[in-house]
């Protein structure tokens, strides 16, 4: 029997007061609890940055690795034990900057992994430099004249990159965030969930107030207004709405969701038993006929 208390830890959560990451951890505990996944069956792989500390703040297995490398570690965990619930945590610097190459390639593979990105549009842990998702024009420590580089669009990249689930949530709406996490974790295949998560210390532009005013839900109560999540072009249009509307309208919810066989499905011998369960003792003499 799974209980929400299974996920609690003693240690104090050390993010800035008001940080959007609190909502991410809180929603994740609830999501895992409501999905009924025992804490020992989940592994979180993270990189470096404020997002990287996530595995410390809830009681599941965790691997806090190197900056930008949450996805390859998560991939290795999944391939070695495909029975585990594997979640990777990244940030906009960690996942869309230094680790962007892995993001592009993991989507092609469609492992059954959930990737949650703490997107606060700034480098927090290194004290306020511009990130790949910092808005054009914003002044930061490293862009005193304002950002001149075009913003990286994670949603659009995920849609064209081959992710089979692409979603976005806002940390200011923890109920919706939890729902999105449950959807992403339940999705069989690579699920990318970008979480707009205000950095209260270094990002004075993209605040709670900023998002509360602009975010609207793709899956609302009016079925007529609903977005077709299997339509790639419609999904792409929605993915560019924030930029096209000069950030007046920011859609959250599921942009894109399709079924495709996972990478693991292509390996018959891990269907029943993960490779960690296989016997290590083998007889190599069967290769000799090729070498004689």
């Amino acid at each position: 029997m799974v209980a929400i208390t299974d996920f609690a830890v003693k240690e104090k959560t050390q993010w800035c007061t008001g940080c959007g990451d609190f909502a991410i951890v809180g929603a994740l505990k609830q999501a895992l609890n409501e999905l009924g996944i025992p804490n020992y069956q989940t592994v979180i792989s993270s990189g470096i940055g404020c997002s990287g500390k996530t595995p410390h703040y809830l009681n599941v297995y965790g691997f806090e690795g190197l900056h930008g490398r949450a996805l390859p570690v998560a991939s290795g965990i999944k391939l070695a034990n495909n029975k585990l619930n594997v979640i990777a945590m990244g940030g906009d610097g960690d996942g869309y900057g230094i680790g962007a190459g892995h993001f592009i390639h993991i989507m092609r593979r469609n492992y059954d992994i959930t990737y949650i990105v703490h997107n606060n549009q700034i480098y927090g842990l290194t004290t306020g430099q511009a990130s790949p998702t910092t808005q054009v024009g914003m002044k930061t420590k490293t862009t005193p004249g304002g950002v001149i580089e075009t913003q990286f669009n994670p949603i659009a990249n995920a849609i064209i990159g081959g992710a089979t689930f692409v979603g976005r949530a806002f940390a200011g709406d923890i109920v919706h965030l939890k729902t999105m996490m449950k959807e992403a974790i339940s999705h069989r295949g690579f699920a990318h969930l970008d979480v707009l998560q205000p950095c209260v210390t270094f990002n004075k532009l993209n605040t709670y107030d900023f998002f509360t005013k602009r975010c609207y839900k793709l899956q609302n109560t009016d079925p007529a207004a609903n977005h077709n999540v299997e339509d790639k072009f419609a999904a792409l249009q929605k993915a560019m709405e924030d930029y096209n509307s000069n950030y007046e309208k920011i859609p959250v919810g599921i942009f894109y969701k399709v079924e495709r066989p996972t990478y693991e499905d292509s390996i018959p011998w891990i269907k029943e038993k993960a490779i960690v369960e296989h016997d290590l003792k083998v007889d190599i003499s069967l290769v000799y006929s090729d070498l004689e």
Partner: protein
Amino acid sequence: MEFVCKIAGQAGAGVMTTGRLMVKCFTRGGYHAIGYPEYPSLIRGGHNTVQVRISDKPIHGPVQTPDVVIALNKDAIFYHMNSMAPGGIIIYDHLIDASKFKLREDVRMHPLPLSKLTQEAGGTEQMKNTAALGAALAAVDYPFEVLVGIMKDEFKRKGEEVIKKNVDAAKAGYDHVKNNGIKSVKTIKPISDKRSIIITGNEAITLGSIKGGVKFYSAYPMTPASTILHYMIENEKAFHLVVKQTEDEIAAINYAIGASFAGARSMVGTSGGGFALMVEALGMAAISETPIVIALAQRVGPSTGMPTWTEQGDLRFALHASQGDFPRVVLAPGDVQECFFLSAKAHNLAEKYQIPVIIMSDKNLSESVFSTEKFDQAKVKIERGKLLDTHKHPLPVLPPMTRWKRYTITEDGVSDRVLPGTPNGVHVSTSYEHDETGFSSESFAMRTNQVQKRARKLKLLMGELEAPKVYGARNDQVEVTLIGWGSLKLSVFDALPLLEQKGIKVNFIHFTHLFPLDEEQVKKALSGSKKTIMIENNSTAQFAGVLRQYTGIEMDFHMLKYDGRPFFPEQIVEEIEKLKKADYKGDKEIVVVEKEDLEYYHPQRHGL
């Protein structure tokens, strides 16, 4: 009896395949055989060659002088004529115009209508080399049936038609030589029907790892390590492995560390440039105490260097890679048997001590093919150390809100380990310094304790190290002691009998366990030696420096070669003869260079 044949032609002409078939042919006849490839970093246009050397006595690597050259293009005549033994023969396609070369009077030229023979036998132009292989076997009067047997096995998966075409092409070449009375200086008949195997260093590393329990392998293609990836994939299904080609080497090692954290014995393979990209994660494996095995197949550096040539220049790099202090093991097999057993051992060491283990080979060992005995599998035992069997003994219930202590400070430095998915074992592993539960910690005391805990593993590990092996007479009974590591064993082993013939008393001390070094063990192995020569395929005598650092022992001479080729035994003999004549006095640094400067990358530079 010894026979050396060079097959050479343009890249893409099938030279490598032909070489491997020939090595198989003679191995099946009971001979010791090696195939040593040389090729530039090009797919088309450069010069490719493989040297097949066989003997009824044990042999280990290539030599300088071929008896037969099979020239598939005109360049091949130019490249290999000068190094041939007197009385040698060159078999070449009659369409090649050899008139522009100044031919040697003591080398016989045999033009063969290779294209025509192949076509008449129903083969494609690509199969010219197969006809040439048949021709070479006929020239030494080797029975054709052996080749037929090899081809049946080699192409069995490709079907009867492919077998027939290859056999027919080879037979055409074979018969043509027989009917025209072309003969080599040597006649070779099978001497035994004992079945040995042929295997490259990389294949032996792969098989040894599989026997050692590897379940996960990830890599990015890089010469000369790529064939580990190829062979792993070839065997993926048979042994239920998961093999992943990743987007880069950073991903490769992070995948492997993830897989290892989840409980699979995991490994990556790469060369220097790829290893450079893995360096950050190497330290992460160390601080998170996640077992990992890295096969590092060296090539000529720095940077892209000469990608397809051999060197031992990455030793210092392997020993020092990554920031901070942490224990690691560096192993260097010297032949394919050692490749097999040390790779199996590497996985035990990595898991028992929860550390990174690096296996160092180089292009010469990794890509050359060697006949060898089948591996004695009974010698390999899987030891998983302190990985708890939680199926048998479930963990006790953890108090609420607490984690399992994965990094308990222990006397031997190794902590109990459980795998994700284990009830009551929840913990975090991290690249940060951490407390006993894995939670990040910057406590001064905890930091000191964790560093010391990890370092203590080295002490325990010392018991697993093999002492350097002394080959030949005792140190005090020889005039000079050669010392080397890894693949240098191949060159020196072939030089030792030649030196003995010349009446020079030499022995050889070979290191396969490069780090950590047991000072007493090393001192014992080297004690009593009169003159010492460290022989290495690099320009700064890296291992000599390491030995001096850890034991205070200084070599009398460094014999070094760093032009991309391994030492040929003749070169070692020549240099030692010179030294002996000078009463073992002279410059400490002896640099060996080739007499004839050749360039495979740009045949144009030779006017070809």
